[in-house]
């Protein structure tokens, strides 16, 4: 409803414009957001100026024939503006474009927050470039992406924006640990951390210490194929099959290894798995119960 209230009178005023000729407004075709500028007027007498922007409206009395100073604070939102001057004989208007100012802020999204090591194209970094008034900077701008891994290596990528967005996809490194990603444009910089975590277990092996009725099992340090230790808490499944039947226990890795203990009756086959990865199988002999 407020839009209608504003639109109808202004439309009527614009319809009356061809009948006029005694006053005119001349604005620069484009200005930078937040910058002060002037609109030249012709004619005599006083009039009422309406400055209509995408998110802001200004109304003030002006003297025709003088340059009208427009404060930078009246044109902070980028987009098309219309200046309308109305006097007793009718209205005249002009339009101009306010462009985003220079890049000053970044919004930075990195996905995912955790990624397995050595995963190709697994990291997606997206930066949106804004000026200091939060207008999206549509002009082509280079965003610098800096990557710092926990192992000490660092590398950079420079990506130009397309309609204000710079987008990059890269693989994770081969060593686990935090990967710091910094996106920067000029003075603006934003940092995010990605946790690179161990991948699937590789070469999973168990060793057994047999007693007469029990067997103690312990894995070698559980690592992925890149040598990264799987984090503590990762579940390792032990399975024993002997005369008494099948026994299983899911036990979490502690201090890099997983351990379990089974009672054995006769000849027993014991295997180990971590997720969908199978390890070795061993045989032990226990006393029959």
């Amino acid at each position, binding site marked *: 409803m407020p839009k209608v209230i504003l639109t109808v009178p202004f439309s009527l005023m614009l319809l009356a414009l061809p009948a006029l000729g005694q006053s005119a407004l001349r604005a620069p075709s484009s200005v930078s957001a937040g910058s002060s500028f002037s609109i030249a007027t012709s004619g005599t007498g006083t009039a009422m100026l309406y400055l209509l922007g995408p998110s802001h409206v200004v109304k003030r009395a002006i003297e025709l024939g003088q340059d009208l100073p427009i404060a930078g604070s009246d044109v902070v939102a980028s987009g098309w503006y219309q200046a309308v001057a109305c006097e007793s004989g009718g209205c005249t208007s002009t339009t101009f474009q306010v462009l985003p100012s220079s890049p000053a802020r970044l919004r930075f999204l990195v996905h995912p*927050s955790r990624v397995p090591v050595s995963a190709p194209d697994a990291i997606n970094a997206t930066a949106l470039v804004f000026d200091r008034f939060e207008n999206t900077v549509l002009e082509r701008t280079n965003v610098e992406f800096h990557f710092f891994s926990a192992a000490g290596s660092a590398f950079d990528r420079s990506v130009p924006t397309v309609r204000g967005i710079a987008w990059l996809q890269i693989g994770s490194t081969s060593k686990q640990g935090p990967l710091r990603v910094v996106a920067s444009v000029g003075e603006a910089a934003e940092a995010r951390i990605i946790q690179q975590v161990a991948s699937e277990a590789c070469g999973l092996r168990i060793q057994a210490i047999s007693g007469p009725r029990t067997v103690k099992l312990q894995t070698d340090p559980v690592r992925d194929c890149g040598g990264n230790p*799987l984090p503590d*808490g*990762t579940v390792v499944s032990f399975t024993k099959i002997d005369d008494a039947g099948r026994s299983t226990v899911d036990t979490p890795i502690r201090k890099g290894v997983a351990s379990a203990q089974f009672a054995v009756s006769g000849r027993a086959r014991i295997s180990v798995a971590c997720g969908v990865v199978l390890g070795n199988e061993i045989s032990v002999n226990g006393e029959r119960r």
Partner: protein
Amino acid sequence: MRRALPIFIALVTGVLVAAGWWRAGGFALHAERSAGTAEQAVRALMADIQARNWDHAFATLDHANGIQEPDFIQEIAGTNGSLRTYSVLQSFDAWLLHEDGNHSTFRVRMNWSSAVGSLDELRDLSTVRDGNVWRVVWSKPNYPKVPLQVLPVNYLRWDVIGRRSDDWGAASVDSPQVRITSMNAVERPDRVLILGEVENEDTVPAYVNVNAALLKPDGSSLDEQGSFDAISHKLLPKQVSPYRIDFPGLRLSQVKSVRMDARALLVPASADPVISVENQSIDKDVVGRKVLKGVLVNQSGQTVNIAQVLAAFYDANGKVIWVSDGYLDQALLPQGPVPFAVSIPDEVAARVHSYHVAVNHYIAPTA
């Protein structure tokens, strides 16, 4: 005339009370509590258990085996916040298996109404004649005796901190990565089942829900269901859980395809307790049904109040062909073995090549 109305009201009240007593099974209860025959002794015991009349129930037992009342009550009423403590005996049925002059054996099917639904229990009860009455021989519970010890527990715990919703792009932590590693659609006489396994592939714990939608040939949804309690919802890193989704009243011929959806939430979790599943074997129960039997051993120092067994059964090709689940009505005390059995349909049992058992647990919060 003045006294007629109070007398009339008193008579009507008396008639209503008698009718209520009769409707509530008063005659049957009275008959069941007398033990002139072996069957009456069994039924009287069941009636006492149903009424939670432990003292009277214990008094009617045969005490020759040295059973103690606390042990009897502990077994039948539950303890340590076990599922049995949240259960009542809803109904029972007893039938004679064997009888001679002074001894007989009855099989009793007890239907317990519990916090997780209806649970059936089968138990064989012996009875002996004691003069003019019959008494039930209640097997002496054999509770494990764990020596006093200090058990160091240093398993991991994961906490989730600093949750915020107002900082776009800056404070996000992804949901755990989970994957459905297998899925199979199975038809039973009264339903369609979606079975399979799901793995937490991530390095953090996940709260997992698996949902399935059965689709018609035109792509529209026939029905959507979730795994509800037939899954281990909380999965530690690299942990695998079976899941089963039931679609009652549907046939596979109605289904063109299935849309699966595994959703995971980042949740705090503890790697404690570790529960081993020992001596698993496929066997027959007392009524000849195929069951997977075994023993759960709580290897931690904390009592597990309610445990649920989930078992995935595979055929020779490694395909999941069935998922069974069952709750244990006993609590898992530290280091104490507790037997379990989950049923397998006969036609499935013939094709079972191997199986995987997972254990769900519930620990009541401590004050």
